[in-house]
């Protein structure tokens, strides 16, 4: 009998055919309680085939001078933890991976993962499959979305409008502004640009009327055209707000804005430009729409069809110069700010009504 049949074959002890638990998963004690076995119905022994003796990963190591140099700086700077060295089985690449995962956990990883689906890559080049790497001794931390997160705005904006007419525009402009410092948010401004472009395309055509252009203006709340308060004015207004739900929203927004400004975006250097020549705009990390099927979502879906035709620019590029320990420490500090900004945004979206959906379920949370 094959190994598969051994795992998935009918159980020999019960009268009913059933799937036996994979090796190592059946509690031995349970099998020995014969008295109970006679009193109770046979347990359902369905199990998942275990890969106990299969290595969960394979490592390929070549020239690891830069890997070791970075690991050394991280250890000396107390960014990496000594205990991860044994977990990495003394592999420097794995050690860097564990150190980055630890760093993200420390700076709001679980909050980020509730809403955002992101990839953080430590690499020697900005385009993964390119032959052209960055300058010798320079590595990059690159952040990009695996898919865009979603935030529904209308219920929040309507709630805020009841408190103060300027609050919807103020809330959204600061929310998008704080996030746009680091990652791309696709919103009604992008959709308006798309509509403008479509109008130009169709203008010269004979039957221009046959094309349906998404009605972005029609779906955009008028309240967003009102005056926007600056952060000082918003803080003052928050002191007067009595509704705890509203207060939590504004406090969450102020917190997001405070965190987002704690670092500045690293300079986009010439060598980055050379590596990213002919690239598309960055992929959005967040889609901000007024309702789940509105014109903004329509424009986003439309643009998504061609977003990957040319390599997109990364959302965040943090260069790490290995000859300069300060550059590495600054880079990791910037990463911490990016992570905490995303975590604050995720927490704020949790508070925004209508966003009960959109939470990403991870293994073990179901």
């Amino acid at each position, binding site marked *: 009998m094959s190994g598969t049949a051994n795992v998935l074959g009918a159980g020999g002890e019960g009268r009913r055919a059933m799937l036996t638990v994979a090796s190592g998963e059946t509690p031995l004690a349970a099998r020995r309680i014969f008295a109970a076995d006679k009193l109770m119905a046979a347990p359902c022994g369905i199990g998942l*085939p275990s*890969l106990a003796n299969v290595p969960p*990963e394979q*490592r390929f190591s070549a020239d*690891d001078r830069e890997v070791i140099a970075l690991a050394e700086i991280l250890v000396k700077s107390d960014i990496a933890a000594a205990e991860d060295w044994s977990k990495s089985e003394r592999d420097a690449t794995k050690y860097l991976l564990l150190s980055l995962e630890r760093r993200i956990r420390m700076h709001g990883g679980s909050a980020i993962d509730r809403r955002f689906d992101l990839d953080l890559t430590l690499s020697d080049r900005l385009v993964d499959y390119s032959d052209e790497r960055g300058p010798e001794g320079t590595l990059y931390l690159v952040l990009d979305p695996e898919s865009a997160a979603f935030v529904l705005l209308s219920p929040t904006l309507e709630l805020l409008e009841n408190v103060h007419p300027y609050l919807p525009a103020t809330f959204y402009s600061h929310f998008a502004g704080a996030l746009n410092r680091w990652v791309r948010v696709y919103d009604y401004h992008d959709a308006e640009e798309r509509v403008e472009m479509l109008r130009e395309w169709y203008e010269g055509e004979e039957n221009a009327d046959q094309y349906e252009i998404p009605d972005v203006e029609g779906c955009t709340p008028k309240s967003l055209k009102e005056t926007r308060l600056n952060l000082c004015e918003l803080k003052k207004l928050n002191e007067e707000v009595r509704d705890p739900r509203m207060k939590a929203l504004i406090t969450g927004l102020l917190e997001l804005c405070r965190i987002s400004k704690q670092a500045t975006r690293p300079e986009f250097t010439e060598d980055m430009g050379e590596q990213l020549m002919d690239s598309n705009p960055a992929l959005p990390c967040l889609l901000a729409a007024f309702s789940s099927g509105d014109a903004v979502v329509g424009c986003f879906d439309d643009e998504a069809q061609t977003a990957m035709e040319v390599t997109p620019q990364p959302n965040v590029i943090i260069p790490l110069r290995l000859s300069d320990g300060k550059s590495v420490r600054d880079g990791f500090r910037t990463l911490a700010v990016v992570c905490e900004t995303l975590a604050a945004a995720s927490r704020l979206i949790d508070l925004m009504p209508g966003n009960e959906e959109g939470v990403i379920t991870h293994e073990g949370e179901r």
Partner: protein
Amino acid sequence: MNVHVRIGDNRIFALKQAVLVYQEGNRAFATLHEVKSRPDGPSYLCAGQSVTTGFLETLAKGLGASMAAEVLPENVLARTPALIAWWSPAQARLMFFGDSDPKTRHLNGKMYPHPALVFMIHGRELFVRALRENRRPKSNTRLMNAPYWNTDAEGRVCLGSMRVPEEVSASSLRGWEEAYFASEFTHPSGAVRLTSHRGGFVGLWSSLVERKHFPVRFLADSKRTLEEFLQSAVKD
């Protein structure tokens, strides 16, 4: 957040999927299973899905067995995802010789008549053979050794520093031919009879300076037909 480290060739490959093949006699089917990991136990296989034609196509694409549809010019003889072969009519071409051999120094940078040629690119390797007749060869046409240095008994060209096009496609074939003749012929490659001219390689080309026609009687037999030439590359 998914974290990746990609520095140089260092990579950590995580087990993500498994294909299980079920067989009964000469019939078989396969299922594709996600691999899930647990922090406190071994990884396990999730329920499988039947392997679809789409999955096999994705695998084949990953192995390079896909190519864009393109209109083939008339001189193309064969095309697979890994190979392209074409022929080029007899014509006068400029030739360059390395200056390390004093016997070829006087031959450098002059026009010579050349026989019709068959080129083949397999992977990134270039092969060349000659034709006795100046017309499109058939599958059973006997091929001749190309009368050139830097070309071994199999017709494989030692590319050295030759600046060949990045791309292998029908539109880049002229670029490959030009690159071949724009680089220097520097040395013989292994035990191969390049010509039946009694003066050998140097004697042949010395006699052809500024001549109009290549005398095909001086070509040496490769002992292979066009079909055998193409098949030999596939087998390699």
